[in-house]
């Protein structure tokens, strides 16, 4: 059945590419208009952010030097280099039944099942099917999505589970742990195939049995995504063949 799905995706992606152009063009025009309207305000905000980021750059460079020196002392083997494949989003299936996206990169571009998919602001989901020139991305909001994450500054371990709504939930949190709205959530990298530290979202609601998350990604604004390849190709292909 998976072969039928990927064959169908490969067949219709060129059509979807054409059909998605008008909506994409309108979306770009609306975004441009909005940005133009708030250009002065945005400029001020970006200046402030630039000053703040320059300070962080100094800190990051100092830490990187220290990190390199410590790694040399410990004779650590270097981590595999991270590379990205950029693809256009030509399909977005929503509703209460499945939450996924069709993208214009597949096996020929080096995409593999299980790889993390990110957009500018954070994690979008993971690759669930790979065709020749197209792939399906299972979104973090899909009911079948399970992603190990770390919550808050202390890094509490939890599982992020979609429920087909736009606010996925956190499960398997220690009942004694304190989670509050505003806590950031990043991928933990547990289970191997995901890069740790990818921003996922922020906790927005904590009730007795549920911790809800607001993803960083604005789904309606995603036109392109990046598929993260962090050198675990052999492990992933081993997992996929099982």
């Amino acid at each position, binding site marked *: 059945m998976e072969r*039928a799905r990927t064959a169908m995706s490969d067949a219709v992606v060129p059509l979807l590419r054409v059909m998605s152009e008008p*909506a994409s063009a309108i*979306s770009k025009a609306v975004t441009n208009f909005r940005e133009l309207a708030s250009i002065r305000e945005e400029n001020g905000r970006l200046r402030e952010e630039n000053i703040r980021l320059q300070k962080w750059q100094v800190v990051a460079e100092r830490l990187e030097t220290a990190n390199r020196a410590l790694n040399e002392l410990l004779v650590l083997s270097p981590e595999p280099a991270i590379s990205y494949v950029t693809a256009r989003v030509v399909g977005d299936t929503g*509703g*209460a039944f499945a939450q996924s996206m069709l993208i214009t990169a597949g096996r020929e571009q080096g995409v593999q099942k299980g790889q993390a998919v990110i957009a500018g602001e954070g994690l979008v989901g993971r690759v*669930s099917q790979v065709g020749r020139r197209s792939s399906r991305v299972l979104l973090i909001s899909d009911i079948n999505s399970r992603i190990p994450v770390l919550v808050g500054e202390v890094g509490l371990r939890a599982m992020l589970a979609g429920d087909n*709504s736009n606010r996925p939930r956190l499960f398997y949190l220690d009942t004694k742990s304190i989670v509050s709205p505003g806590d950031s959530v990043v991928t933990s990298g547990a289970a191997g195939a995901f890069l740790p530290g990818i921003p996922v979202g922020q906790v927005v609601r904590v009730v007795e049995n549920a911790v809800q998350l607001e993803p960083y990604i604005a789904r309606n604004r995603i036109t392109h995504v990046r598929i993260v390849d962090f050198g675990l190709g052999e492990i992933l292909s081993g997992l996929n063949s099982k």
Partner: protein
Amino acid sequence: MQRSVWQWIDIEARKLLPFGLTFIFVLYGVTPNHVPGFAQVTPMYALICIYFWSVYRPDLFGYGSGFFIGVAEDLLTGAPVGSSVLAFLLTQWLIFNQHKFFYAKSFVVIWLVFAVIAAGAILVKWFCVGIVSEFGFARAEDLAGTCLVTITLYPLFSWLLAKVQLTVLTNE
């Protein structure tokens, strides 16, 4: 009178139009529209088309068409294959069995019946998706958005399809 090859092709192409249009709407349903929040309530465009053609042109849109559109919808949206198929075929079965009811009924009645059938079809699909999912059923209240948008869009799509029927399918 003997028909030329071109006439034959023209007539057969017109007969395929309901299926072709419905397939285009299946594709349209998975095209990103970049409207904030709309992805969560994406309507079932195919269901609107299947209802319309099954009521007004059952001769051109039988169970076979419903089956293939259902398979295409499931393959493209990532839903379990068979969930849309069952929802669409049940919709057609109901309409074909009650075809006398639809004769000369006002648009409002047709729309109201669509509202009931759409709600039923969406529930059938939700049940099928939930029963095969490893992680159970999505919350039923999340169906309301999809259901409401599908019902609300029916008049617009019905008007469009009626225009096509009147201009292209009246003298095939």
